[in-house]
């Protein structure tokens, strides 16, 4: 059986990695790469760039000339488009993450050959829950740290409602850090900006406990897992955690590794003698953040703004169970690379490229 894949968010951090993986497969005959970006190019002849946007209604902004062909041919939809900006207002986040999902579902319902609808989500739909979070769980009333979490949770509720009508699987990813082989970061996210704040002595404290787990995954693993569950191992009605699970780093260890990597890859950083951010309780962090917002100048206010929308998640310690996911992936010989090993490589890439501002490293062509 061959597949025609429609990917939304094709130019996003994960979308960029997914398109070439699908293009490489013999059983994928065509890929429609939906993107609102003005320019998009891919060397594979299988890939057809499609201008559109998930917030543009059920037609996804696709021109009528292209619409019929895409509807008729699409057998797999990978819905990767999202607003991942943690500081977005709830309305802004819902506009893409909830309404966008609603539009893609409506579009999917018009695809006669559709066999698989894979929705990318986040493990943080668990919001402020603590403890072990299992893959099949969703409903809770614990609240959320930011609008991204809440809007993705609401989107998952919608997806579950639609599972009776469409072949839907939800893949919840933890934080995609960067390439496990080159360290390259395709797109800067909040965690990368936070590391830069630490590097520049602008990160005084982080809420949480030293033993709070920080779940990070490599781009290759994330992309390979999505490919695996979208084509060949699709399970309608199921939810999987693509994450580090029990192998996630503790916050204390993460900070140690960061410091070690800064010292190793930028030895001159040592002379700054910058302290590691203190791990504090949430009220202390919130008091600092509020104070900086009240009186700090722009640099300090912006620094706080970068971290305040996501680091409070660490004050709600949890472990994401990924038993179902790893069983399926390991059976196929797809191991999850050790974050302990690839994390320093990502920090190296960030330091040496000055957070992507001065080009890439030799041999740094990642996914």
């Amino acid at each position, binding site marked *: 059986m061959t597949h025609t894949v429609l990917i939304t968010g094709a130019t996003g951090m994960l979308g960029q990695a997914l398109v070439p993986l699908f293009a490489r497969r013999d059983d994928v005959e065509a890929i429609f790469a939906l993107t609102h970006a003005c320019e998009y190019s891919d060397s594979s002849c299988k890939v057809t760039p499609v201008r559109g946007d998930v917030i543009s209604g059920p037609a996804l902004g696709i021109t009528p000339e292209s619409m019929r062909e895409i509807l008729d041919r699409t057998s797999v939809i990978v819905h990767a488009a999202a607003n991942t900006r943690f500081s977005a207002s709830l309305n802004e986040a819902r506009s893409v993450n909830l309404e966008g999902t609603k539009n893609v579902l409506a579009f999917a319902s018009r695809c006669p050959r559709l066999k698989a609808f894979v929705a990318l989500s986040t493990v943080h739909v668990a919001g402020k829950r603590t403890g072990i979070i299992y893959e099949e769980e969703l409903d809770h009333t614990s609240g959320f740290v930011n609008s991204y979490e809440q809007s993705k949770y609401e989107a998952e509720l919608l997806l579950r409602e639609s599972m009776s009508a469409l072949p839907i699987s939800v893949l919840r990813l933890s934080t995609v850090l960067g390439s496990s082989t080159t360290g390259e970061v395709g797109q800067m996210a909040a965690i990368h900006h936070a590391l830069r704040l630490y590097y520049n002595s602008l990160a*005084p404290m982080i809420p949480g406990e030293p033993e709070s787990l920080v779940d990070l995954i490599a781009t290759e693993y994330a992309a390979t897992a999505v490919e695996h569950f979208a084509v060949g191992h699709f399970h309608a009605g199921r939810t999987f955690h693509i994450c580090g699970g029990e192998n996630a780093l503790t916050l204390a260890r993460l900070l140690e590794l960061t410091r070690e990597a800064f010292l190793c890859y930028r030895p001159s950083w040592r*002379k700054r003698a910058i302290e590691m951010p*203190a791990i504090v309780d949430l009220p202390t962090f919130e*008091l*600092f953040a509020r104070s900086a917002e009240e009186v700090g100048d722009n640099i*300090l206010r912006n620094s706080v703004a970068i971290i305040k929308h996501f680091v409070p998640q660490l004050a709600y310690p949890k472990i994401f169970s990924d038993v179902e996911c790893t069983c399926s992936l390991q059976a196929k010989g797809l191991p999850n690379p050790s974050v302990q090993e690839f994390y320093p490589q990502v920090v190296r890439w960030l330091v040496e490229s000055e957070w992507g501002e001065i080009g890439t490293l030799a041999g740094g062509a990642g996914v």
Partner: protein
Amino acid sequence: MARAPDSGQANSLVPVGISAIQYVLGSDEISLEELEARGMLDSPAATLSEFGFSSARLSRESSYTLAAAATSKLLGATGVDRTSIDALFYAGATPSCHAVVTSDPRSAFNYPVAQLQYELELTRATAFGVSQLGCLGLMASVMLARDFLLSNENASRALCVSADVLPAGCKREMMYNVISDGACAVLLEKKCGRNRILAYRQITKGYYWDAIARKNEITAAYFPTARNIVRDALADAGLDSSDISCILPHNVSLRSWEILLGLIQIGREKLFAENIAKMAHVIAADNWINLQAATETGKLCHGDKLLLFTFGFGANWACMVLEH
């Protein structure tokens, strides 16, 4: 982390304690609203009020005059023999505090510590100026005085004084803190069990030497560095945070203390914050003014473990642990 010389066993056998403290403040008490009206604040008065300040003390006198007044007050109150003072340490945060300048450029060599030694007849006291430590000057002087006493067998008393007066019309807000003028004198005595020094830690981070350019970085570095130095000083004293009866702060904003208390896990009720509103931040003198004030109000009991923490531009963090 830099650590002050450890006197080891000698310290426990020959305790050095702080036997007397006296201070004077600038004579003019100016409200936040008035400071704001005079253009002497960066932040709104209402914000600084929320941060725990209500007024500042401004001096019409020179820093030297305040230093002499505080020292005379201490000598008068204690009745101590002036010739028994073996060392005099004079601290000031700004260069102008360390010279009695006239129109002759060579007057830069006219040092107030020598003038003070002469005018107050501290004839046996060896004089030292302690500078470039910002608000840490007096605490560092106390530590240097302790080491002086321990390393000189025949020495028994040392006097430390700090004096700071900002230029007239100068902004009175620095990094969200309201600044006052004042001077404080501290007497250390060998074999004195009162306010015995149990531990001292000081750390300098030169990366932050440019306090204006690195204002934001200093604000961010302040808290984790403070947390670490408090932790290390407590460990040196063989104590943990629960052993501390009272924190004698430098009078920076109450808000920043509330944040720091969260980091060092000591309850708000242990912070002696009574002077922050009315006195504001008297540069290097705060911790010692607060020690004296807490003593006078009967808040402290014999044997209480006291924690003094301060930060000074430079950039220096320091923490001292005393046994009352």
